[in-house]
């Protein structure tokens, strides 16, 4: 199947049609007042964005957007909506000033955007400098995005992991309650439903296995730490929804999740310090083994593992915090 099909017309057409669909979704989202519909529409918007990213050949980004943007964001918004239980009120005054400001900003930005290179122009400046060097495959990892993320731009990824950790810590600080060990109702459990039980027991092992696959094959195909962490957390969230939050907290206890949260960042920093101790710079992978290329592989492996551990811990902890907050509120009513 080596023949190229499509060409510029159909590829551009696909991207443009999807963009128009997204514009419609956002228009309806701005006008809707029912917050549940707003959350569902934002999920639709994120899925359309993931599809466009595949059409633009950004497969790693599409996977992350589908898992994190469409999956986790929708779950978090639904959790918050369940706790807040409101509908948007009618606006008190006509929003002329924001509309005017928005239109003025749009006009200025479109005027600026017309100066950008044409869509898919191979002579655009961004293809001339750094990208050809990244595509030279210095570190012998086929997935260039993983190589750039973990090796060439490792410091950025370290900062990002710390940001995820800080968000988890902040949410723990905001939503932690002093009372412990309440024996209340089981909360949202669909345990009496046979279909969900059977399908859940079938699917959850494969979801967790797929998370591990995505983690370790990030070097050779789309994947990596962020997607794998999110998929792992999604498997446990699925378990919690079907079998009950208390049972999930027994299988994956709070202590373990909080340890995972911190351990990933420590692992990442540990790899950097190992580079220092072995004679190179911080986060220098060339010194991690006698063969520098093998050292790069090792460094990328451990760094991605650290990222995956922290992301799975944070996503799971956020779900636990939101779900248990609603559970205890229900008990106090």
């Amino acid at each position, binding site marked *: 199947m080596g023949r190229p099909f499509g060409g510029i017309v159909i590829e551009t057409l696909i991207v443009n049609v999807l963009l128009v669909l997204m514009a419609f979704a956002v228009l309806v989202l701005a006008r809707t007042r029912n917050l549940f519909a707003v959350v569902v529409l934002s999920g639709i918007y994120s899925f359309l964005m993931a599809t466009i990213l595949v059409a633009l050949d950004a497969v790693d980004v599409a996977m992350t957007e589908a898992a994190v943007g469409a999956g986790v964001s929708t779950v978090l918004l639904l959790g918050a909506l369940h706790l807040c239980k409101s509908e948007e009120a009618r*606006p008190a005054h006509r929003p002329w000033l924001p509309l005017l*400001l928005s239109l003025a900003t749009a006009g200025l930005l479109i005027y600026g955007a017309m*100066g950008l290179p044409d869509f898919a122009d191979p002579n655009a400046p961004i293809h001339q400098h750094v*990208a050809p060097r990244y595509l030279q495959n210095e570190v012998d990892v086929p997935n260039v995005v993983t190589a750039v993320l973990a090796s060439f731009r490792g410091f950025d990824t370290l900062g990002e992991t710390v940001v995820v950790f800080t968000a988890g810590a902040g949410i723990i600080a905001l939503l932690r309650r002093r009372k412990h060990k309440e024996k209340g109702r089981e909360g949202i459990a669909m345990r009496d439903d046979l279909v969900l039980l059977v399908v859940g027991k079938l699917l959850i092992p494969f979801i967790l296995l797929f998370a591990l696959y995505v983690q370790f094959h990030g070097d050779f195909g789309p994947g990596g730490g962020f997607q794998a962490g999110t998929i792992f957390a999604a498997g446990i969230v699925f378990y919690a929804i079907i079998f009950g939050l208390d049972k999930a907290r027994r299988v994956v206890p709070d202590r373990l999740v909080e340890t995972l949260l911190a351990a990933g960042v420590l692992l990442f920093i540990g790899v950097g310090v190992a580079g220092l101790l072995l004679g190179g710079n911080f986060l220098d992978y060339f010194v991690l083994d006698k063969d520098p290329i093998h050292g790069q592989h090792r460094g990328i492996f451990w760094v991605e593992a650290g990222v995956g551990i922290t992301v799975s811990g944070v996503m799971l902890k956020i779900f636990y915090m939101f779900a248990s907050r609603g559970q205890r509120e229900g008990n106090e009513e």
Partner: protein
Amino acid sequence: MSGGVVEHFTYIVTVFLMVAGLYIVMARGNLIKKLVGLSVFQTSVYLLYVAPGKLIGGTAPILAPQYTVYSNPLPHVLILTAIVVGVATLALGLALTVRIKETYGTIEEDEITAADNAVQDAEDAHS
């Protein structure tokens, strides 16, 4: 300006999405809707970065012997970071919203400001 509207259609729709998100943040008073508008704004910026990297006839930047043209991998890395940071800020914003709801009883911005002003007026009247 090398091309016309057709070649820049992607950027125009991206700007529309960005400004729509901005409008939702500015004009709507409900806190959850503001957060959704913020995430719409962030997602449109991802498009702005990834779209110029695409090459017609290219493929995803995973090196394989049968392909020679690859789309630019650098925007993909930046946007991967941006997506994860976006969801982290959304989670923190939602946790704050939940606490605001528990304290004030509402998540409408006007009512929250009115409650704050009432407390401030009561304090000023006391002292």
